[in-house]
């Protein structure tokens, strides 16, 4: 194969080069190490028009490669006022500012440090990038002793460094698992990005989906008729595979359940196969549900920008549930969507007192653990169906699948959704092999592309951060002939496809409900010969 030579393509990078990681820190003090940007290693700046759509200030044209980033005139004041405001409104930040002992337990737990050896990718140092400014401007010792107290001046160089390193963190929280105080670097990354955004400094791969979501209801900017077309297309595909025609309710008032899933699942492989799985399942159950075009996004790129933006985008879900008069909300397979739904939604946009406690219309299970937020994860819903024996499943249809399961960072470490998807997976697929212990569940490794990092232009960053996961996948491929990486996250489905192609060739990525849909025996179906991907079923031998 002729190797393309562009830094936004995986083929541009040689494995042997990426694997040669020098973890010896560069000499000198990190405070004096200048920041540099190279193609493949940074995200494109947010286009001013996207900030404009969201009504955010200081949008301007700039490039990481420029000497002058054209920061607003009073940029120091904006940053320091922002920092003060955040400190005053978050005990979490106050404690995390002052309790770190720099033991370095987090250091080599970070997929970005593991894959790059860049010392500023050690979570402790990523946090110190902000703590050093905090000490200088908010503590007496920092003001008086300066560098000796770990304090430094706020300069444009600091802003560049923040942009580089807060966009080399997927907010995956793996470091926090190993921190004796539970210091969560994601909090610093969120803070840093929030402060940068106030200067008009952000990544387009974050702000374009956010602007789209604000305007059209979803990250991809699909308009209502486009959503209908996409769903109809999936229904056509499903009919060709199963012989069953499914109805797809959209914006339907009077439905019992509002279904919200990441829009990526409606548009691009392999997410579309997962969406077909949802459609097949809901049809088979005769679920009284509806999609929404206004709230057509489960994901929330506001999470990767600022708490306010997260709240603005998330508000649509409850607003739409209220307008349509549904009883409760069911959420699809998505990682960061569930971080928002589980840990932020009720606090920001609740209380959802106009909804009812989710009750499965099939099994009658009352989901008490979701009685406040009134939103249920589809893996919980399906695992409950399976536990009650209410699904007719034929795992032999997935006989060609030898699966392993990638815990997505957010459902694993910000929710604890670990066994529900495994229970489902075991019921629909006979061959399931776990990756090594320290790469799954709460210690799961990174896809390398979450939190707005899934762009092509920072391909080197993604391949490096995905190295650990990729090698763990290659390990089960080599030891158990695993050929499918199952995951419950739309970003994973996109980014891990790249990671697997590069580090674990021959393994493809599938959603959980793709396998459910394939195994699901539907009333009135024709004999199945193909899976949702239109590949012949591998069973029968």
């Amino acid at each position: 194969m002729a190797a393309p030579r562009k830094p936004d393509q995986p083929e541009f990078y040689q494995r042997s080069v990426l694997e040669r990681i020098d973890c010896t820190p560069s000499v000198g003090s990190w405070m004096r190490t200048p920041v540099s940007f190279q193609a493949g290693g940074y995200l494109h700046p947010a286009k001013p028009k996207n900030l404009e759509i969201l009504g955010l200030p200081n949008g301007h044209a700039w490039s990481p490669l420029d000497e002058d980033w054209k920061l607003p005139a009073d940029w120091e004041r904006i940053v320091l006022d922002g920092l003060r405001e955040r400190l005053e409104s978050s005990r979490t930040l106050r404690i995390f500012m002052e309790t770190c002992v720099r033991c370095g337990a987090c250091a080599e737990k970070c997929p970005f440090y593991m894959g790059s050896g860049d010392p500023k990718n050690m979570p402790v140092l990523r946090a110190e990038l902000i703590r050093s400014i905090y000490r200088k401007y908010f503590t007496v010792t920092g003001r008086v002793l300066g560098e000796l107290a770990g304090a430094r001046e706020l300069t444009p160089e600091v802003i560049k460094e923040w942009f580089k390193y807060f966009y080399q963190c997927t907010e995956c929280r793996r470091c926090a698992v190993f921190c004796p105080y539970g210091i969560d670097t994601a909090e610093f990354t969120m803070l840093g990005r929030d402060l940068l955004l106030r200067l008009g400094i952000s990544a387009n791969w974050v702000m374009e989906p956010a602007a789209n979501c604000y305007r059209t209801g979803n990250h991809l900017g699909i308009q209502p008729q486009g959503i209908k077309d996409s769903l109809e297309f999936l229904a056509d595909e499903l009919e060709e595979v199963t012989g069953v025609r499914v109805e797809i309710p959209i914006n339907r008032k009077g439905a019992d359940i509002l279904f919200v899933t990441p829009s990526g699942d409606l548009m691009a492989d392999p997410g579309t196969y997962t969406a077909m799985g949802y459609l097949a399942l809901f049809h088979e159950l005769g679920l009284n549900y509806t999609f929404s075009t206004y709230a057509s996004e489960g994901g929330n790129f506001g999470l990767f920008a600022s708490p306010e933006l997260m709240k603005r985008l998330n508000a649509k879900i409850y607003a739409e549930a209220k307008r349509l008069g549904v009883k409760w909300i069911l959420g699809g397979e998505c990682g960061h969507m569930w971080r928002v739904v589980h840990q932020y939604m009720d606090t920001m946009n609740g209380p959802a007192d106009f909804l009812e406690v989710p009750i499965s219309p099939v099994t009658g299970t009352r989901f008490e653990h979701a009685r406040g937020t009134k939103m249920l994860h589809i893996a919980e819903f399906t695992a409950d169906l399976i536990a009650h024996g209410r699904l007719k499943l034929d795992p032999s249809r997935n006989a060609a699948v030898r699966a392993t399961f990638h815990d997505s960072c957010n459902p694993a470490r910000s929710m604890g959704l670990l066994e529900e998807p495994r229970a489902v997976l075991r019921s629909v697929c006979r061959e399931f092999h776990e990756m090594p212990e320290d790469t799954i569940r709460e210690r799961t490794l990174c896809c390398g592309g979450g939190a707005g990092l899934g762009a092509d232009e920072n391909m080197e960053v993604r391949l490096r951060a995905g190295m650990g996961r990729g090698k763990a996948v290659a390990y089960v491929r080599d030891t158990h002939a695993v050929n499918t990486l199952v995951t419950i996250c739309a970003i994973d489905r996109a980014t891990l496809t790249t990671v697997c192609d590069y580090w674990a060739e021959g393994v493809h990525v599938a959603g959980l409900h793709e396998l459910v849909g394939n195994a699901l025996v539907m009333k009135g179906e024709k004999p199945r010969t193909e899976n949702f991907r239109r590949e012949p079923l591998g069973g029968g031998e």
Partner: protein
Amino acid sequence: MLRAGRHLSLHLGGALGAVVVACAVPALIARLLGARWPLLVVAVAVLVVLAFATTFVWKVLRWMRAPVAFRIPLTVGQQKSIASVSHSRGGNPHSAGEVLLRVLLDIVLFRPLFRATPTAPGTARGLSHGMGRWLWFMAVTFHASLLIIVLRHLRLFLSPVPALVAVLERFDVATEMVLPKVHLTSVVFPLALLLLLGRRLLLMRVRYISLAADYFPLLLMLAIASTGLVMRHVARTDVISVKQAIMGLSTWAPASTSRPDIWLVIHVFLVGVLLVYFPLSKLMHMPGVLLSPTLTMANSNRERRHINPRNPDVVTMHYADYEDVFRDRMIEAGLPVEKASQGK
């Protein structure tokens, strides 16, 4: 390497200098002390404890004044959800009691550090360059021996000596045969400090992140431990008379007129420095960890709403505005709308 030396010399040098000064000051003061020294010691001690307590409380109150904006527990085990899945109480607490269990595991047993196993063979080989559970071992031995030593010292302040302290004392004595008795912690505590210091200096990435604030407490505690050991095993300071002098003071009957041992003055002064420094430093991880929202909050997020008192009002895109933009296209696609089209 010259510049690497600069980083190290600034922070290690700064810390070392501070400890040397902290040792020199009391050594000089000791020469000036007269017969009324117990009074002076107690007066300073009262000030030091007051400074420690007030700063400590002020710091914690300052933390507490800020609201916990979001409930963001870090989950390290299976959530409580459906009946068929068994819930990990210690890894994913759902109730207050389970939070307590988690705190016990994470904070008392240092579980997060215990998780640091080297990356499994064959998976990410070459990626793992951690030290496995060594840091856990150092942290546990350091904190445990520090706790025992602090409790052991209570015998110098309390009369009668509490039973617990006496039992601890017996438990801590490793070598009954040797005279004088050597405490286990007398060996383990300085050793743990040296290991922690050695790790900081020898592990290049940890040296790279280390500040004076990281070396200073280690060096200070080494100095405190050393002077303590000198008193016990070399200078053979008469602690009974020290206790009598101090206890006598509390009943306004000073028993000692002799000048105090210089090692004792340094030892006590350094402890004072540590106490004053404590609430101004990273040592506040002690109360901090007990308030850390990731470790001490129940993961009952979807069950009970967490209130953020500063939940800001934000501008959102309302459905009506959305429909206004897309109404014609929605009608054309056969999607239901709230308002009929008003035409172009």
